[in-house]
């Protein structure tokens, strides 16, 4: 089963077409980079795929569920993390894990066990009772990512997970992504860092609501005769 399949997926707001008939598939265990300029329609597309926004037309299945009829099943079966909002700063580390476990409907026993595993894996046992606001950013990120996949979803959506993060922490975060992908988790990620685009198996670039390019970073560079993904992006997004 393909984790994401869309066909002519479209969203209109009044006369404005935010997402214009996008068709693509994401393969199992793939790191799929979803790129585009601000306002190109990425967020709208992502919201539809997460079951948060009803499309105007077209089809899409995520984790095998239909975005029109089974939006709730989608929400239960995906993970989601964004840089802007993921953890409650005024809750303790432990409380955040418990909260997300509860939201995803895990049993108390499972939550207990997962909390223990997770704290051990992140080497954060000593910080379990600290408020999230007191954690260094890198730790917050690791925790946010781990919490987003607490319920073992087959696919995780990462919306600009590394915005404003220092270069070392950014790379540590990608180690987590690689590791998750290595375990078979499909990763759908947006970023404005073009070097990160290179870490993806395949990337799509949206321009004005449409997917204008979709391929491996290597192929895209060859296709656009570009030195780097930055060049590819500039060539595509400028050609409005």
């Amino acid at each position, binding site marked *: 089963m393909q984790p994401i399949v869309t066909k002519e997926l479209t969203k209109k707001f009044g006369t404005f077409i935010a997402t214009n008939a996008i068709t693509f598939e994401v393969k199992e265990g793939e790191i799929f980079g979803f790129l585009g300029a601000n306002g190109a329609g990425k967020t709208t597309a992502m919201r539809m795929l997460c079951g948060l926004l009803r499309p105007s037309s077209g089809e899409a299945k995520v984790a095998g569920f239909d975005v029109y009829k089974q939006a709730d099943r989608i929400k239960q079966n995906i993970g989601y993390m964004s840089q802007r909002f993921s953890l409650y700063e005024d809750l303790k580390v432990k409380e955040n894990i418990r909260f997300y476990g509860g939201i995803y409907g895990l049993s108390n026993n499972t939550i207990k066990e997962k909390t223990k595993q997770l704290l051990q894996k992140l080497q954060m046992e000593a910080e379990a009772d600290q408020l999230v606001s007191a954690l260094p950013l890198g730790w917050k990120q690791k925790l946010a990512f781990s919490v987003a996949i607490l319920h073992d979803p087959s696919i995780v959506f990462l919306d600009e997970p590394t915005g*404003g993060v*220092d270069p*070392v922490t950014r*790379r540590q975060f990608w*180690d987590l992504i690689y590791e998750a992908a290595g375990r078979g988790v499909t990763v759908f990620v947006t970023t404005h860092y073009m070097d990160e685009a290179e*870490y993806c198996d395949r990337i799509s670039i949206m321009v004005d609501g449409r997917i204008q390019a979709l391929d491996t970073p290597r192929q895209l560079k060859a296709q656009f005769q570009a030195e780097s993904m930055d060049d590819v992006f500039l060539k595509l997004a400028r050609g409005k």
Partner: protein
Amino acid sequence: MKTPIVVQDVHKSFGKVKALHDISFTVNEGELFGLIGPDGAGKSTLFRILTTLLLADKGQATVNGLDVVKDYKAIRKIVGYMPGRFSLYQDLTVQENLDFFATIFNTTVAANYELIEEIYVQIAPFKDRPAGKLSGGMKQKLALCCALVHKPVVLFLDEPTTGVDPVSRKEFWEMLQRLRKKGIAILVSTPYMDEAMLCDRVALIQNGSLLEIDTPQHIIAQNNKPMWAVRAKRMYPLIQDLRSFPETESCYAFGEYLHLTLKHGEADLDKLHAYLQPKGHEEFSMHPIQAGIEDCFMELMKSEKV
């Protein structure tokens, strides 16, 4: 001519947290000065002290010769400030926001139109749209216009391009270059290392301390450690193998390559090849490269942590 920004031994703590520790630097006339560092490094605290919104615990600072404590009212009239968080009125239109900020400063958009023209023409098609409905790049252009509307002498831009796509970022920096040529001193912070290269000088800030102040070109030139770009068909196993190699000093992903430094530089190369040989990485390639600004910063950040 007065020096646009002088900061001397500034300290600031919030409870136990040392937000700024012994910060000193100068921004010269017409200089585009970059403050480079991650979230939580203390950048915004420094901006707030210099824009007279926050008092330092210790130390002095002047903006265009005016003291940030005694002359705060005069400073507020001559600086433009773009805070990190989008701070325009979301429910006012583009035009209303501009008029609002112009009025606050007792001027009009028309009076200094020449300064904002290049930026304004890009947002003009959306002038009747509420600011909250603009895309990220457009919001930042509007915010820059609002910060320039009273023709400031010094411009403070706190992470103006965070979350902005590469095309808009490029356009934004082209505008900064033009403003600099008009003699406006600019202090700009960013988490993007590629933007550091576009500054006249940069200061790297981490955990409230400045690690280095220099031209980006000089920072790069100072780093003479041999570095290699390495790749293979499957990158993640390659990273893991390289990191487990005992003589590896650092190994980080950089776009399509890994950047590798070895403890004894070239002397370790034979050992490395012998180590990698049995691992059988397909399509393996390796070539020496010159470290870039991001490599240098990561190196500096690391030495600070130890």
